[in-house]
């Protein structure tokens, strides 16, 4: 339904001079949540709205979904006004918190949302099976959501956003509440969905998430658009060249240093890179999953203490 429709690069979401001012009962302006925002989100890209809390990210998303009405300007999705309910046929939305009915179980939840898309029973059944497998909740599909952990609720929230195989997926803080594995899975899934031709609009204040997955970003601050463009070009530092090489001897490193000095360049740093904590954590957990009981960092384990020796202040990293 979704991937084949439309051309890559076609504008899916458009805001024109989109402004939202919250007013009090007497019509006096209280908060200027969004000021004359102009944005385009194109088919097949992952677009990130980035900004600190209160910058207008969620307001923009709510305006695009018709949950709020603009004070002025326009919000268009698939060329239709945001207040037009029919646009929702092609949208999947994951709210900031997974606002779901806690008395339903996973299957009932997805079945309910499938019905809202007027899906036939057979199609609902197959989508529910696929999505429950996708989010890896087959083992808990009959449990009421009130028994779910935050991460599980987030995953079922994502599944409901995908129930209609949407063309545009709107994700509000998609990694909130997820552990590092869940976060990585979510980011992988977002990229995979983009690769399947979906358009993704996400907002987050977690810079690493946005950097990892987004093709283009808009940075908002105090309701104003401060920066807009491709992540690569925005983050590119033009006057610094980074070279990464494996298996260099100290002599070769020294030769490189000399070469830089001879060509009047300035060596900023030359060191062995460190992995991110996320990479380290994921490698430990995956290793542990594949070899239960195996302790990887024996050298950090304190030696058998002597009778009068002091106890270590911190426990070992991995037990």
């Amino acid at each position, binding site marked *: 339904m979704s991937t084949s429709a439309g051309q890559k690069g076609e504008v899916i979401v458009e805001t024109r001079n989109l402004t939202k001012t919250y007013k009090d009962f007497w*019509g006096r302006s209280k908060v200027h949540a969004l000021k004359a925002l102009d944005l385009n989100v194109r088919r097949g890209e992952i677009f990130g709205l980035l900004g600190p809390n209160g910058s207008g990210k969620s307001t923009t998303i709510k305006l695009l979904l018709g949950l709020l009405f603009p004070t*002025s300007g326009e919000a268009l999705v698939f060329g239709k006004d945001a207040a037009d309910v029919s646009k929702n046929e092609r949208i999947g939305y994951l709210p900031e918190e997974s606002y779901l009915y806690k008395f339903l179980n996973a299957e009932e939840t997805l079945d*309910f949302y499938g019905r809202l898309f007027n899906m036939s029973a057979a199609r609902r059944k197959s989508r529910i099976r696929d999505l429950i497998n996708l989010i890896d909740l087959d083992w808990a599909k009959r449990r009421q959501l009130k028994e779910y952990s935050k991460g599980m609720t987030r995953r079922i929230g994502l599944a409901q956003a995908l129930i209609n195989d949407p063309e545009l997926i709107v994700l509000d803080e998609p990694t909130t509440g997820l552990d590092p594995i869940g976060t990585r899975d979510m980011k992988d899934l977002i990229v995979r969905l983009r690769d399947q031709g979906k358009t993704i609009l996400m907002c987050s204040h977690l810079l690493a998430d946005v950097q990892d997955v987004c093709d283009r970003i808009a940075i908002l601050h105090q309701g104003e658009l401060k920066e807009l463009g491709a992540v690569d070009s925005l983050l590119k530092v033009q006057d610094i060249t980074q070279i990464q090489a494996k298996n260099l001897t100290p002599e070769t490193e020294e030769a490189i240093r000399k070469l830089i000095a001879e060509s009047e360049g300035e060596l900023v740093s030359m060191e062995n890179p460190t992995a991110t904590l996320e990479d380290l954590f994921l490698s430990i957990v995956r290793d542990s999953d594949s070899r239960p009981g195996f302790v990887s960092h024996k050298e950090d384990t304190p030696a058998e203490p002597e009778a009068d020796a002091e106890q270590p202040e911190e426990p070992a990293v991995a037990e």
Partner: protein
Amino acid sequence: MVVDQSEFESFGFWLSSYMVDFAMLLLFILVGWAILAFALAAIRNSPGRAAKMIAGTIKRAFIVDFPRTSIRRTMAMSRLAIQEAIRNKVLIIFVLFVALLLFAGWFLDVENDHPARLYLGFVLSASTYLLLALAMFLSAFSLPNDIKNRTIYTITTKPVRAHEIFLGRVFGFAAVGTLLLVLMASVSYGFVVRGLDHEHTIDKTAIEWDESTGLGTGKTSLDAYHRHDFTINRNLEKADGSDGLVGTTELAKGHSHNIYLRDGDYIVGPPTGDLLARVPVYGVLSFLDRYGQPSEEGGLNVGKEWTYRSYIEGNTLNTAIWEFENLTEDMFVTSNSKSVLPLELNLRVFRSTKGKIESRIRGEILLVNPEETLRNEERFSAPIPFEADEFVTTQVNIKFSDIRRQNPVTGELENIDLFRDLVDSGKLQVHIRCKEHAQFFGMAQADLYLRAPPGSFEANLIKCYLGIWMQMLLVILLGVFFSTFLNGIVALISTVAIVAMGMFAGFIGDIQTGEAPGGGPIESIVRNITQQGATLELEMGDTAIEVIKSLDGFYLNTMESLAKLAPDFSKFNMSSKVAYGYDIHLDLILRQLVTTMVYFFVLVLAGYFILTSREIAA
């Protein structure tokens, strides 16, 4: 039993007179919404944008949203509402109801003279109040909870139309309420039937026999706090001594029993006549004054504040006249082919002299041809005597063969044919007079009627429950409507206020027109404080009275206008008809259905516009 005057109007007449009211209601709601939505949108945006939004909403409603209504989506919302209600343990209401019935013996008067009325009134009232309370809570809190918990975000971002959200909730809660009502009705029926069921025995040795007539009399055993006088006719016993009906008991506590001969013993059968659905054929009431002249003012007022009934004076020409229409001969043929005109009277008796207080007051019935061009001798039947007592239903079954007229020539009584001599084009007048000096009969239009063949009690009970169901649906509609723009508790209070207003609309109107004495709220408070009776002229300074009446007038006018917008819930309550054993006419059900449908469409439309006009995430 009090019957509202509007019940005598035909459905067609009622519909034509209420169409304007319904149209006004629709107009009021829509124009009210447009003005309010425009004002709010203009404050939050600009007048130009507000007008554009309103126009866009109306256009989208009729061109896009309503035509694309999806039954599957609506049913999904209903399913959710049902699951929510059931998992919130609403069925506990049924348990509460059963507990009420189990312990009913603690608070119901088991020695009441009319146990059927008591039991039916109790179960129907309990079902109504419990169900309406449940409907109010379910409907008023559901949508605000969804908005508060933001679960509504995952609904409104799907292709769900606002009216589907509204309808889904209404249908879902109605389904839960229906299930509860069916359960309550089933248990109630069992409770009433079992509660009324009892047995008596007859002590054969205590029967007093009149050998000359073959009639035996006596009293049954004391069971269920009563006993019956009975009469057994030995002549009915079969020669071979086989089983059969041999007598009946007198009426006690609203029922009687048949007596059977079985294996040589007299057996008292189950109670009969307490669960009825009498079908009354009503006539139009008018009066002649004490000189026999048509009275414009109606009957007399004997000083009672409640003016529902008028009175006629005894031993004068003061007459109450009921004129019946569309009578046909086959309406009165009984199963044993004897034609009987079955009259039933619920007259009130007002005694201005004590006399013999135990004795009934005598009256007479005259069957009269309404064709006034005939001579009086031809028009009037001979008087048929009867006796009436306060709060007692008097049955007068006039056999066709007993209807006589005085021959104008010979002066002797002669038999006449009811339909040939007295009924003119299906019309017949029944005149009632009181025959005792200084005593009065009181009556309203519904107090004398012809009894058509009775309907089924069970069918009547179902009709009554249909009325309760429609009340429940209206309450749900109101609750969901208010919850589209108010928070839960305010929506609940608003629903309660509208229901109360609808229930007391007639009373508010009576106060406003002065028919109910005592004035408005301020005047009533003043009267209470200064200890002045409600029917007396208010004694205060002219200016003070003017101010009080003006303030009351403004308040009552406002209340009456608001009450006109509310559905008249009192018209849906038919429990007294079932309890008193009267069939609920189909016209009444039709009126309620039409009223419910009108409110359904108006409130769904209003709910749609409010939901589409509000910012869900604001």
